[in-house]
């Protein structure tokens, strides 16, 4: 008996290593945990996509729960995501603020005219400096921000209805219940 036990030790070790490797296969290397969860959105003051003369800052956005969506016209996944954002905006379940990242103003405006505009506010971050403060490393990225400007969730990749209904909506309802 003891003998069988001894020979099974390498097998058990192999099993543990295999389990870890198998889990690693299923993980997405693009999903990097954000250190900004639980922190305020960075201070900024940037023009809007609509006009270079309209300045928006982080204080303007306080007082409401919203999704902060990083997008760009050069980003193919953003195009795929856009219809979902339009549907979400129409449903009235949540407000969406856009952060247009390293883009050109006329292209961004044409995109919104052609595909619809789900954004109540659209920030124009041409240099990408505010995006760096947000830890953005790709587009699209979406943050859930509460009325005090605190980030509660970050998602890298296109938002889907499934993600919204299963993950974002429960969090939004929680935040609303807490009265922020």
């Amino acid at each position, binding site marked *: 008996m003891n003998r069988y036990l001894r020979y099974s030790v390498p097998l058990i070790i192999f099993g543990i290593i295999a389990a870890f490797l198998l889990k690693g296969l299923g993980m997405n*290397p693009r999903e*990097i*945990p*954000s*250190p*900004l969860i639980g922190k305020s959105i960075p201070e900024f003051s940037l023009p809007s996509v609509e006009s270079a003369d309209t300045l928006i800052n982080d204080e303007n956005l306080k007082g409401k729960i919203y999704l902060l969506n990083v997008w760009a016209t050069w980003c193919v996944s953003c195009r795929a995501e856009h219809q979902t954002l339009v549907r979400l905006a129409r449903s009235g379940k949540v407000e969406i603020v856009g952060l247009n990242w*390293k883009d050109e103003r006329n292209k961004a405006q044409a995109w919104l005219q052609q595909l619809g505009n789900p954004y109540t506010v659209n920030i124009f971050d041409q*240099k*990408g*400096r505010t995006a*760096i*403060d*947000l*830890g953005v*490393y*790709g587009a699209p990225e979406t943050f859930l921000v509460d009325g005090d400007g605190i980030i509660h969730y970050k998602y890298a990749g296109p938002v889907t209805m499934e993600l919204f209904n299963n993950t974002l909506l429960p969090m939004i309802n929680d935040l609303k219940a807490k009265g922020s």
Partner: protein
Amino acid sequence: MRQTLFALICLMGLTSLQAATLAEYTFEDPAKHEDFRAIIEEMRCLVCQNESLAGSNAELAVDLRNEIYEMMKSGQGKAEVIDFMVARYGDFVLYSPPIKPSTYPIWFGPLIVFLIGGVVLFRIIKRKNQSRETELSDEEQQRLKELLNQPNEQRDTNQ
């Protein structure tokens, strides 16, 4: 032969191009320049995750290099730059993760496995030694002496 030579020259051109992209970052103080190079070598480019910030040509890597350059130009040190990057992108940007509870397995795991291996090896060797014949008892020692001291004639009786 000629083609090979041509290809080689092209390759050499590529490396100098790579160096040229970093040559734009100049510091008056050579120590600062060293620091800058060290930092961007140690940081991971978030777009192409297996490249460092120094080696990557992704647009975000260029932006981050510029940002770090500006920070260091304005007199901020290595620790401040690292804090800045970690606050935004997490420990993931660092190629060597800091030692803290969540990274203990990475840092100390190999050592623990090594120690376990050592203990197992030690026990195996010890057991092998035990199973070997031990020293002779007094009785056996006596018998050995007798055998060795037997006169030669007696041993040669068969002849």
